[in-house]
């Protein structure tokens, strides 16, 4: 009998669904624009009421009062709106980058674990080179050449996740390569590449995918750190790390500007980690029962 999933699992899932749907439907939510500045309400606390100017269908200026759910930042912009739009950056990079790493790194790792010797050795040396190379310099080179766009950041970060996936894929393949079903497939005279894809791949897919959840969490953290160094997406596009660093200047008088996005980021990273952990445990258990 598989053990029941811990309570944290549905909670994390619910939080992630909330964040993802906010990111998807941000344009349809009744929110002020993310770069609308309300100079009357700078760094105002959560729940305060302000007035924003919008243009109605006939082009007339209309003043409308609105409530800043989570307050405003140092430039009077609504923090909730910026969080919602910022989640797009974190999630897009957090999902695209590991997908790239999983594809390339996973494949390289499978090859390295299955065909050991020269080929496997040179793949692992290549991974060592990537690991020894400071990621920041690489990210910088890419963003200088291709601009600080979402795509170039996601691709660059994806490249940096390759070694991690490669190591895990290799370790998993090594474990499987000596198992009976692989040997018997080999005895039937199947081609090695076919064994790799038909026998090994389906068996390492589940652990690789749950490992990817930890990498997603890691990439979200790295993107946050990059925004923090103002090397991620260009302002005024909001990103979680960016909001946190802007609020750092006002930490003493308006701590909510930094601490609320920090909290949102923490919960998101924690949720990805918890789900990854629960799935990993489930897989381990099934392995043991085999």
């Amino acid at each position, binding site marked *: 009998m598989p053990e029941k999933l811990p309570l944290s699992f549905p909670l994390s899932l619910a939080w992630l669904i909330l964040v993802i749907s906010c990111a998807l439907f941000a344009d349809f939510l009744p929110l002020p624009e993310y770069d609308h500045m309300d100079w009357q309400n700078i760094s105002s606390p959560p729940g305060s009421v302000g007035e924003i100017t919008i243009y109605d269908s006939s082009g007339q200026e209309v003043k409308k009062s609105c409530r800043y759910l989570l307050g405003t930042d140092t430039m009077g912009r609504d923090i909730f709106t910026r969080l919602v739009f910022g989640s797009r950056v974190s999630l897009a990079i957090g999902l695209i980058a590991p997908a790239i790493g999983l594809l390339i790194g996973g494949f390289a790792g499978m090859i390295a674990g299955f065909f050991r010797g020269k080929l496997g050795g040179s793949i692992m*040396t290549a991974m060592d*080179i990537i690991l020894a190379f400071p990621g*920041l*310099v690489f990210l910088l*080179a890419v963003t200088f050449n291709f601009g600080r766009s979402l795509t170039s950041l996601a691709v660059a970060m994806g490249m940096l996740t390759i070694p991690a996936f490669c*190591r895990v894929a290799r370790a998993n393949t090594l474990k499987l390569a000596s198992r009976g079903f692989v040997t018997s497939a080999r005895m039937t005279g199947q081609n090695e590449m076919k064994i790799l894809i038909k026998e090994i791949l389906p068996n390492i897919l589940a652990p690789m995918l749950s490992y990817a959840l930890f990498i997603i969490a890691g990439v979200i953290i790295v993107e946050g750190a990059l925004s923090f160094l103002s090397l991620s997406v260009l302002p005024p596009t909001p990103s979680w790390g960016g909001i*946190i660093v802007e609020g750092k200047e006002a930490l003493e008088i308006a701590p909510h500007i930094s601490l609320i996005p920090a909290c949102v980021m*923490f919960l998101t990273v924690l949720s990805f*980690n918890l789900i990854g952990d629960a799935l990993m445990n489930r897989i381990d258990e099934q392995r043991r029962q085999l």
Partner: protein
Amino acid sequence: MKQLAKRLLRLAFVLIAVTALTFITLDLLPGDIAEYMTGDESSLEDIEAIREDLGLNKNILVRYGEWLKNAARGDLGKSLRTEQPVAEAILSRLPVTLELIAISLFISLALAVPAGILSAYREGTWIDKTLNCIAFSGSSIPVFIMGILFIYLFALKLSWLPATGYIPLSDGFFANIKTFILPGLSLGLVEWVPLMRVLRTDMIATLKEDYILAARAKGHSAFYILFAHALRPSSFTLITILGLQIGHLISRALIVEMIFALPGIGRLLVNAIYGRDFIIVQGCVIVIAISYVFVNFIVDILYALLDPRIRQENAHA
């Protein structure tokens, strides 16, 4: 011995590849260093003169060869902006980064070892669950958020410690340590989690061994058994992970140095990046790469010393 030579060769290869890659990457960056140096109102002749002076007109391979030759002699070139020798700039900042790394390692080990042992010894109880819960939450807090939280709590609200700044060791030991407590904590409180988790897993396996039962039967105290018998055989994975962490700590310390305004290698690198001072960037990259490769080399050797079984095999996992 043959193993050792093979590893050394690989080490050298990785280092050369990394520096060559950096050289090419930096060369590919748009914008001409010479133009940055001369400013906006310079004539084409000025720019050309500087290019010639820096040797930028030569083939990239020739330039890399020259850089490598000089680097091997310890000459990493001069900063494009301040004309300070790069090696000197790096050496003057290295102690700050090393002190930060040492303090954060001390904190993370001081947390991870007791917590790992305790939660393995009390596996499945509420102590174990609470410790795991704390560890899990800790690992989900990004370092820069940890830093901001600490600044808010201990510097702004409680005013116990300075928020930013650096006081050199020559101004007194305590004054110096004070500036490192918050940065060290921010880094240590994130880094201890993987260490604790692997120690716990390995420790649980060790505690099931017969010799632990034998030691218990002899009437040794739990404390003695855990530290004298169980810790060493349970610490292999811990050491590997520790090595990986130390190897990456210079890069990880970077963001902490930025938040707390500590004049270390990371800050030097980031400022050189902002200022497009590529010779300094190149110098920092080689220091980071060397430390990463070197630490991993040491870990491999330590591994062999701790576990005689591995001395023969090629343990790369």
